[in-house]
């Protein structure tokens, strides 16, 4: 997760670089450190540095890291020629390197020759069976081909070894949700909440999944998680506010108003929603009010 200072620094550098203010190298280093995906900007500014021999030699040994970064950005933007040139340069310098091998395999993947890329990745993994990045690329490739079940299988194998990689768990959860395998998705989100309990995003996603599975107990659980999201975001998360109202009305529907459900919170959530809508999109306020009224009536 990017911290606030880093984010503001990034914005500032981006503006500076876009307006030809120099500082391209710092921008690129920051992007590399934070592992962000700004491929078009990286490509543009990286190429300006690389094509200028003076600036290139000023970089020293970091030149090769820049080549790698620009190659990956070029692959992302489908400028395969640029990528091929960068990879050739790197190959000349580091003939037997695993990192360059990985770049070559990524080039094959970008071209669309899936079978060859698969072969390249497998051979790289044979030498080094515990390389996280290559395993992840295999998953990404399976997903790109549309082979979702294969992606799930690879991702599960990956997670068997690298259990603490929360990005992988998140990816798996999203894949399960796309396949409507909600129980498994709930499990993945639970893992995420366990590893980082204070991130409201995971609570929210978990609540969504639990609400979708349905059933009285699950609805009550979902309501609790929407409430925790509200608390973690200071009451500003619109989706959580809606979630609370929906949960309350669904629970009321299921129990036919029999139990002494705490309706206060949904009232508060509805009021907060109306306030938000008044501020940001007053034209939709009437729509909101009628929706909320219908929820309560049910």
């Amino acid at each position, binding site marked *: 997760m990017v911290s606030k200072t880093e984010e503001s620094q990034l914005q500032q550098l981006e503006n500076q670089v876009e307006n030809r203010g120099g500082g391209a190298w710092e921008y690129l280093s920051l992007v590399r450190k934070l592992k962000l995906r700004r491929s078009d900007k990286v490509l543009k500014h990286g190429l300006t540095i690389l094509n200028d021999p003076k600036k290139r030699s000023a970089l020293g040994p970091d030149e090769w890291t820049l080549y790698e970064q620009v190659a990956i950005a070029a692959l992302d933007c489908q400028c395969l020629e640029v990528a091929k040139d960068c990879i050739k340069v790197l190959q000349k310098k580091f003939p037997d390197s695993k990192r360059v091998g990985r770049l070559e395999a990524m080039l094959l993947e970008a071209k669309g020759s899936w079978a060859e890329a698969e072969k390249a990745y497998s051979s790289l993994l044979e030498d*080094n069976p515990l390389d996280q990045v290559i395993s992840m690329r295999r998953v990404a490739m399976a997903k790109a081909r549309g082979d979702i079940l294969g992606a799930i299988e690879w991702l599960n194998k990956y997670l068997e070894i*690298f259990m603490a990689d929360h990005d992988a768990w998140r990816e798996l959860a999203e894949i399960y949700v796309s396949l409507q395998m909600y129980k498994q998705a709930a499990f993945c989100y639970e893992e995420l*909440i*366990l590893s980082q309990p204070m991130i409201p995003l995971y609570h929210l996603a978990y609540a969504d999944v639990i609400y979708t599975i349905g059933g009285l107990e699950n609805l009550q659980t979902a309501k609790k998680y929407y*409430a*925790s999201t509200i*608390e973690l975001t200071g009451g500003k998360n619109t989706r959580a506010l809606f979630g609370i109202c929906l949960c309350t009305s669904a629970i009321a529907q299921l129990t036919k108003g029999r139990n002494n459900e705490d309706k206060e919170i949904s009232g508060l959530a509805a009021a907060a929603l109306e306030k938000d809508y008044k501020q940001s999109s007053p034209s939709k306020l009437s729509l909101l009010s009628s929706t909320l009224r219908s929820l309560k009536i049910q």
Partner: protein
Amino acid sequence: MAEDLMLDTAIRDWVLIPLSIVMVLIGVLRYFVSKLMRTSQLPDSKIIKEGQLIIRARNLRAAANFIPPKAFRARKVYYTNEENGLLYVPKGQGQNPQAQMFSDPNMAMDMMKKNLSMIVPQTLTFAWVNFFFSGFVAAKIPFPLTQRFRSMLQNGIDLSTVDVSYVSGRSWYFLNLFGLRGLFSLILGEENATDDTQRMMQMSGFGFDPSKSLGAEKDGLDIVQHDWVLPKFEQRAEAVLRKRLS
């Protein structure tokens, strides 16, 4: 008996400072040599798996109160189940890591290399110090010491009446040995091979890491009581919303 011995400034110029400089240089040299000699360790998949498992189990223990009771119980059983739980290590297997460590040629070579790079320079420097810088008083320690330290700190000085605060070159060597660690972490960055004391502490607790910590995690998990905090969150959320609306 507090007689103030006047120590020649030549001692400072020719003993204390050169010794420190030599030790710094040797440290830097060792750092670069170790960098060159370091073979990339092929991480063993079993060890990685166990390490990640420990992280995951620890997360479970730490944040257990955030997930629903059913989910927690399911996970607890999954981890600590007697037959095929993840954390369960049967007694026999516990001894393996250490035996493995000595039989595995790679790891043994690695340890030997690390030991060598640590012991050889230390021994050489120590011998050099003893040869050149013994037999005279080198420095005065600013605080008084008991008589017990005499044998350690005053090796070349055969006068028993000299105050124990006056020490020989050997003690300056030891002082430098432990004190320059801080300096090295400034010059060479955080990771440097000169961290002898740390390495010594590490070596004592080496092979037992996986199985013992797995057992420890299992015990920890068995103890944890699940106290679901989410209901409290619901009330807190109400308070937050109320504050927002007011």
